[in-house]
């Protein structure tokens, strides 16, 4: 299994770079993951999305549907892609430490 390193800590990620132990997520981990997703810096806007995703996941045990994400954060999908070039699933969810979205590809 590959790892990412943050402050000497090694965090296991899968081949796609999703962290394997959700408990180990931290803002620092997010920052580290961000780099792999072409997000050089996590701005306030990024955090809004990331926090929303985490809250939602905490509450419902699933990631929100995209439409909901856009509605609730106020970012149109276009902007989400500007923030996270690899998109909400591969980009934002990964940075937010959510499980890898499955299902329909």
């Amino acid at each position: 299994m590959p790892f990412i390193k943050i402050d000497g800590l090694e965090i296991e990620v899968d081949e796609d770079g999703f962290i394997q132990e959700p408990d180990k997520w931290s803002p620092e981990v997010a920052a580290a993951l961000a780099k792999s997703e072409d997000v050089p810096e996590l701005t306030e806007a990024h955090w809004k999305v990331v926090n929303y995703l985490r809250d939602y996941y905490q509450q419902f045990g699933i990631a929100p549907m995209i439409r909901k994400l856009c509605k609730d954060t106020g970012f149109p999908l276009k902007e989400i892609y500007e923030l996270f070039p690899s998109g909400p699933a591969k980009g934002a969810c990964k940075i937010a430490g959510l499980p890898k979205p499955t299902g329909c590809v």
Partner: protein
Amino acid sequence: MADSETPLLDELEEGPWPSFVKEMKRAAEKNEAAKDLLRQLERSYVDKVGHWKHGGIVGVKGYGGGVIGRYSDLPEEFPAVAEFHTMRVNMPSGWFYNTKKLRELCDVWDKHGSGLTNMHGATGDIILLGTSTDHLQPCFDDLAEIGFDLGGSGSDMRTPSCCVGPGRCEWACIDTLELLYDLTMTYQDQLHRPMFPYKSKMKISGCPNDCVAAVPRSDIAIVGTWRDKIRIDPVEVANYANDGLDIVQEVVMLCPTRCMTWDGKTKTLTIEDAECNRCMHCINLMPKALRPGVERGATILVGGKAPIVHGALLSWVIVPFMKIEPPYTELKELLDKIWEWWDENGKMRERLGELINRLGMRNFLKAVGLPAVPQMVKAPRANPYYFWDPEEVK
């Protein structure tokens, strides 16, 4: 042969039908990934199970789909396919190519991938089979260079497809090729950036023969048809009869509405046009003599899909007839309304047809503003469980 690494697959090089094993070996000669793919497949033939890990989510910048991530579950044994993602490349309308474009494509793929492809995937894309994560973006960039964009995957509009239509078929009642291109371009966002509850497929056939299987295989099927009457060339009809076509047995008796009569003496075929349901059968058998009418358009059907989750569905008529002419405004307005309603109401992984079943056709029709007409149903309801708008009940 005794020392072949792939004795089971080798057997599939025999026989008259062209062999995919030969193709794999051909690619394997130049490419390690292709070689390991062959070896891993042999292993599956022995084990009788697949050897790919679950899932995989990789992609290129600005796109939410178009690449299917895949990792071997035996990466030590088959290191060259440890990462083996496929790219879905949007094909041109009607799968028409010139050799120049195809060669360019081959060059890009030899540079970045396994050299193996599917021409085409079941949805219609060019499937570039197998590359590694770090080749994805460069491969995309090179594809962009030669004018190939990605198709759909994930919860988006999937790459739509269409039959050969006016390109080569005399029965095309709509310009399937141009419509497909126009819709594909109009809905690039929906194609590349998943935002729906689940996948949404669209297929366009030029006539009810449905050569692209739109009715069973797409959430939104656009099928050409006509509203006036079949055009008959009586001389050619007689010719067919003279050439040995048994018009009574093969045509008249198989006409589903039995709206034809054949006068054997005068060799005259008559169609009671109002009763014809435009099934194409008679036209199919006598293309020189019979032709679709001239008032042309399409029937729109929705809801088709495979069995996941609630069972397979064929798509259902929601617009019996719509004129289909550029800029396709009426059609696009309808598509927008359909997706809007589905996106607003659909649960995660609920296809359009399943949502219609859950919320009721009446709610769907109301939401997209379509009137109820008998053409929508095979038969009216047999159960007495129906609703009234409180307004209607004084």
